[in-house]
């Protein structure tokens, strides 16, 4: 790099750039917070939905599945699973309940988590709420 461009100038670009863009990021975050209620339908986050999120987390579902495209890529996307199962909580519950404890020979299988009826209902309610988030049209189709 040329002699005219000094270390002090490089340092100033670093500190100036970092501070400026972090402040811009904070401003955008503030704006996002204002926009989110229209998109996440937080008025529908009932106690049951919140409990469903806990069930989701405490069984590490994200370790195999994606949720809105984030997570592991071993098992299907679940952000739209409520819709894929024909807008049916019962379908989701029946699927989770019927997983064989010893798996399926040679194939990927979801573990049998032995969830209570209350936990199953909460989880399904959480996935139903998640399917109603405005995700800008993602995923491209029902297969996730």
């Amino acid at each position, binding site marked *: *790099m040329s002699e005219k461009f000094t*270390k002090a100038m*490089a340092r100033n*670009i*670093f500190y100036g*750039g*970092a501070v400026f*863009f972090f402040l*811009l990021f904070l401003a*955008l*975050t503030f*704006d*996002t917070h204002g926009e*989110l209620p229209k*998109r*996440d339908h*937080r008025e529908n986050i009932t106690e049951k*939905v*919140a409990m469903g*999120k*806990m069930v989701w*987390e*405490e*069984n*590490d*579902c*994200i*370790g*195999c599945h994606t*949720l*809105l*495209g*984030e*997570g*592991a*890529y*071993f*098992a*299907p*996307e679940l952000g739209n699973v409520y819709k894929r199962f024909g807008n049916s909580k019962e379908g989701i519950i029946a699927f989770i309940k019927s997983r064989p404890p*010893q*798996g*399926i020979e*040679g*194939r*990927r*299988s979801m*573990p*049998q*988590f032995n969830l209570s009826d209350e936990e199953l209902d909460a989880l399904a309610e959480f996935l139903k709420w998640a399917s109603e*988030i*405005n*995700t*800008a049209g*993602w*995923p*491209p*189709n029902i*297969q*996730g």
Partner: protein
Amino acid sequence: MQYSSQAVAKPYFIAAIGLFVGQILFGLIMGLQYVWGDFLFPEIPFNVARMVHTNLLIVWLLFGFMGAAYYIVPEETETELASPKLALALFWIFLVAGALTILGYLLVPYARLAEITGNGLLPTMGREFLEQPTITKIGIVIVALGFLYNITMTILKGRKTVISLVLLLGLWGLAVFFLFSFYNPANLVLDKYYWWWVVHLWVEGVWELILGSILAFVLIKVTGVDREIIEKWLYVIIAMTLITGIIGTGHHYYWIGTPEYWQWLGSVFSALEPIPFFMMVIFAFNMVNQRRREHPNKAATLWALGTPVMAFLGAGVWGFMHTLAPVNYYTHGTQITAAHGHMAFYGAYVMVVLAIISYAMPILRGRAAANSGKAQVVEMWAFWLMTVSMVFITLFLTGAGILQVWLQRVSEDPQPFMVVQEKIALFYWMREVAGLFFLTGLALYIISFFVGSREEEATV
């Protein structure tokens, strides 16, 4: 070794390599589960293997960063570490806490682990990469504070160089942004929004400061180029990192419920994220070409040149490939993401840690500057074997990803996830074979520490 307290880096480096082996073994288990679905089921289900794989990676890189800091800072500040005893105590605390957490993942069902560790009191578990029980997270914060205290006090009492200041800034940033892992609202959108403040602002933000400063340190040592020149480059590179990378966080805010202006912001800024990596390549090769001395540690120079190249390919090129919103609409959450993740982490962070280990370990083990020629040859074979294997892992996952995107998302008759997975199994098999070659490379790497130790040190 110029300062005796630098010796505390050694256990950190050894632990890092040990955990690296564990990470790769679990990676191979997962790779096999992709094609042999019930392998080790139900004893080690995929999600458990994945937690172990990713958490070991994070923990061993942290061991590597801490070891690097304990080695670099005394030499840069020209003073002994504030407290080598604290450094050693924190080493054991971190190692035991880490081991217990991994054992927890493996020995009890995750829901039971959540219950035992009182996740209900402050729920933070069950989010990707942040699966650690809340008490482990608190432990990480305590270890980080002790570590930062030690490093900060050392820098305060000694010479202040750009390398040590940038390193310090990166390490403080690492600790500060980790605090967002304790924020876990019931609203999934908000949860995801701030989850990225840990994950993205780590790997595409403050960790790059750590990467840059470690690389700059190794380059000063092996090339003898004037510090002024290297430090100027370092500032420009990390300036570009943060200028592009902070708003670049927006490339994670396309489809998670956040406003749609993020598609523009994320696309534009993250498209610029390869620039600092490209500058890093130019920088490293320029410095080595303008070297003012011949350093006998050829292996360390190889790692220092390999790091920016692979980071540019993995983070820069493979990142750019799916970062524009209209492309990401189809590739989001597919094997394309996995391909990028593998090469980016290997190229940027694994390789820089192995570069500083390669430079420092011979000195920590009592050599003047380098291992014997024989040990270096084995280490360089390990470099090529691991690096080329990672290129193939990435290519095979990319192949799988392109087919997945096409069959599941683009074609006129989109097929279900599992149907597609079976159709692309061949790519997973090839990835697993490449993984075995990677393991061979890792084995050679470890062997390189035990060969030629009685032979004369290499000369230039």
